[in-house]
């Protein structure tokens, strides 16, 4: 590409882009939709355009690009992602192995200390080990998360992984969950992100990260064999002494957040019934060595079902009888089947998807259409998305550039647009902490919001403008000296800039141009 100084670029947006991107001019007869449609699709179904993306989609055609993104198995993984994963062995460990290596030593030390058997082990030392493990595991998986967002060509799969992770949120900051959040994303979310909703629900419901996060590992039939009490205390999740029994937490969120939605027509009695159905679905015994069965045996997610803690009585859930057949795991699957098939679930998921992909205030027509597809296909996520992407609302100009980026999306899209590969992700993760969106750190089970009112505030806006500036001038810690090149940024996002931005950038000093582009109002939106 010809090197052009931005200061001599004409102020008209079209001619600017043409000057920078001769390839576009050659391809201008393509029948693949207009420029703004291409940018819209890149903004909504990927984490933002990288240099070259626009031309690629234009050549390929928007619809073909969408179809390809809906079929991630047809897209080869990027070498950057593959290299990162092979370079970080914890990412290939099962939940059992992760616990064995990074959780159990801590438990053992703490138990010894608690028993007074070893006075040499102080709380401080235990905390030190926990902190080291936390840094290692969370560091590895955060890097994977960012690497995938930046580099994978399977962008829609990654975008949907983000969507579902927040839908089925777990937090690295609850007890041992830092060991499992990455595995949860890799094993329970991503493989099903474009699959069938019922499979996804089954995977998340059986994953230790979820069972721990929403306390179901302690959910037991009262009076029956209880979850290990010392562990409960140790993990800081202990319920009232002597009163351990039914824990409704998971049952409630399973209906309110994961399936039916808060107005989904269930009652407190349904919550209690579902809690009884879920009794006994727990973790392997953490005090003992992890058995082969727990590594990949009784389910590849490492859950353990304890019949002796299960309530085998007949339960009534949403008017349907569950149980009495003597197969506890079967009862749980039966309940998940019921929940996944409810029209309220179809509506709830569709509402969230339309909010995520179209507008903060989801247009009803699109929600209803997606909901109909969801029901007709029994939760085939790809089909629902196909419906969504074919809706006139998805293409309506009135909705384009109306979503406001979350801090995570802002960081990722900035690095994508400027083609910067940080040498260290930590400063970026630090920014996300400051901006109130720590990676894997949403405390509440409803996950991070994707709406403008959650993220648009003066302090947050100034913070991200300063990140943009630091990237633009090559002073962002973690990417020092990797100065964003304004031409590169232009080639990625030039098509979405308005004439005011183009004019201000054109007149701005050379060293500020990339900063102004990445910090522009248009780039805050998508």
């Amino acid at each position: 590409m010809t090197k052009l100084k931005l200061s001599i670029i004409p102020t008209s947006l079209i001619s600017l882009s043409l000057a920078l991107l001769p390839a576009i001019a050659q391809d201008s007869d393509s029948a693949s939709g207009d420029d703004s449609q291409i940018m819209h699709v890149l903004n909504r179904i990927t984490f933002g355009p990288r240099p070259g993306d626009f031309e690629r989609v234009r050549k390929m055609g928007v619809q073909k690009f969408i179809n390809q993104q809906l079929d991630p198995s047809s897209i080869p993984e990027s070498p950057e992602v593959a290299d990162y994963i092979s370079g970080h062995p914890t990412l290939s460990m099962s939940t059992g192995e992760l616990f064995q290596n990074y959780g159990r030593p801590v438990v053992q030390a703490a138990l010894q200390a608690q028993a007074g058997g070893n006075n040499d082990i102080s709380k401080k030392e235990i905390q030190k080990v926990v902190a080291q493990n936390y840094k290692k595991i969370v560091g590895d998986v955060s890097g994977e998360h960012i690497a995938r967002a930046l580099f994978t060509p399977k962008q829609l799969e990654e975008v949907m992984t983000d969507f579902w992770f927040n839908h089925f949120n777990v937090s690295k900051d609850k007890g041992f969950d830092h060991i499992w959040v990455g595995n949860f994303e890799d094993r329970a979310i991503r493989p099903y992100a474009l699959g069938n909703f019922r499979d996804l629900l089954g995977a998340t419901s059986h994953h230790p990260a979820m069972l721990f996060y929403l306390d179901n590992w302690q959910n037991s039939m009262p009076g029956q064999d209880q979850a290990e009490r010392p562990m409960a205390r140790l993990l800081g999740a202990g319920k009232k002494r002597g009163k351990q029994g039914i824990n409704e937490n998971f049952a409630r969120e399973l209906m309110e957040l994961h399936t039916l939605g808060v107005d989904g027509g269930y009652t407190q009695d349904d919550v209690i019934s579902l809690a009884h159905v879920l009794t006994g679905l727990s973790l392997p015994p953490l005090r003992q060595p992890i058995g082969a069965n727990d590594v990949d045996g009784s389910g590849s997610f490492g859950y353990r079902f304890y019949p002796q803690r299960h309530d085998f009585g007949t339960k009534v859930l949403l008017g349907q009888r569950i149980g009495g057949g003597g197969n506890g795991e079967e009862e749980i699957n039966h309940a998940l089947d019921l929940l996944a098939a409810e029209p309220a679930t179809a509506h709830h998921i569709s509402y969230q998807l339309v909010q995520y992909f179209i507008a903060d205030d989801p247009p009803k027509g699109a929600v209803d259409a997606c909901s109909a597809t969801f029901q007709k296909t029994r939760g085939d996520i790809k089909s629902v998305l196909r419906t969504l992407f074919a809706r006139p609302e998805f293409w309506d100009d009135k909705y384009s550039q109306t979503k406001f980026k979350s801090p995570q999306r802002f960081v990722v899209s900035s690095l994508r647009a400027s083609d910067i590969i940080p040498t260290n992700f930590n400063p970026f993760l630090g920014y996300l902490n400051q901006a109130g969106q720590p990676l894997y750190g949403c405390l509440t089970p409803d996950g991070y919001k994707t709406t403008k009112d959650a993220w648009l505030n003066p302090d947050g806006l100034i913070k991200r403008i300063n990140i943009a500036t630091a990237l633009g001038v090559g002073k962002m810690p973690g990417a020092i000296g990797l100065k964003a090149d304004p031409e590169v940024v232009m080639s990625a996002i030039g098509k979405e800039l308005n004439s005011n931005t183009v004019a201000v950038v054109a007149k701005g000093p050379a060293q500020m141009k990339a900063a102004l582009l990445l910090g522009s109002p248009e780039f805050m939106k998508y």
Partner: protein
Amino acid sequence: MNRREFLKAAALASVTYALPFQGWAAEGQANSNKKLLVIMLRGAVDGLNVVAPVGEGQYYSLRPNIALPKPGQAGGALNLDGHFALNPALSPLMDMWNNKRLSFIHSAGSPDPSRSHFDAQDYMESGEPGIKTVSTGWLNRLLAQLPENHSPVRAINFGPTMPRIFAGNGNVANVALTKNNPLPTDRREIANYFGQLYSKDPVLAPIFAEGIAAREEINKDLAEGDQADQMEQMAANKGARPPQADFGKQLAKLLVKEPKTQVAFIAFGGWDTHVNQGADKGQLANKLTPLGIGLADFYQRLGADGDNVTTIVMSEFGRTAKENGNKGTDHGHGNVMWVLGGNIAGGKVFGRWNGLSGNALYEGRDVPVTTDFRSVISAVLTGHLNINDNALANVFPHFSPDRSLENILNA
């Protein structure tokens, strides 16, 4: 865009940009503005060794190694009301106690039984114990109930991370309590370039202007006097820092100079004393010392303005009444809350105290919660910030405060 349009845009930008400053300095009605400062001690401070029931034999039998010595003894606790006594590490606060600007509410806390730091902090910040799906924090909900004064620094969070308690729609400025690192946009010419970019965006322009204005205010306030000493070492809990004493200086600087600040929040971590917590000296005392110095310093620097600032100190739950096998304490239930400020009915330990006998303890082990933490906060909100019952119901839905707590403030 031609040159003339550009100049027009630039001019517009600088107007928008300057707007928040208009009339700013003129309205320096510092004394008419009531403020609330909330301090959260993350990790569960051992309230029984902050305000200790030294008048009870059980206190000493439950805590043979870590009880505070009686007042008058070496390292003795500081007598409050004959029954309770203060950890001597908090001696800087005794002036405020004696001047009736400090009170405690014992046996207070969250009605939720969780002993998980994670859940209990969450509930204390959402203000809705037991309900996990509340996405806003009560301090942010409070903002919507206070008079809108269009200040970019109406609400200030001190610390690196926006806390749960401030989650919500109201705008909150974030201030590092350590060195106030300059940002590129603090430089006028850089801010101006972005001002030009944002001038044409009807939604973002005012938000940008407000953000820049907040930074200017904060920078101006903090630039005066010396840069505060760096506070050291991050604590484990959510980036909260151990309370080094200098926070009082920084807080006072900002709150004195910002007549329009209405609420502020700061969290300190490192109170999870399971092992060797000490008594008048040791781990817990080391944490309390700078907190006491900082708070006393804060109110001293505020001077008369201090009457307008009420401070609430709270922690997610208390710790076990009995010391554990490691000369520490484990996760408990009820705790002591602190209130400081001008119109506090000071010099009293409030709350229904049932003593430490086995059957008075919650589940036989913890100080019970006889006062919901929201009753204490509600009393301050109505008595100090003058919000009405309807407004209060928006801050704490599903909750009726115990009105008898209103006597923690002067009528």
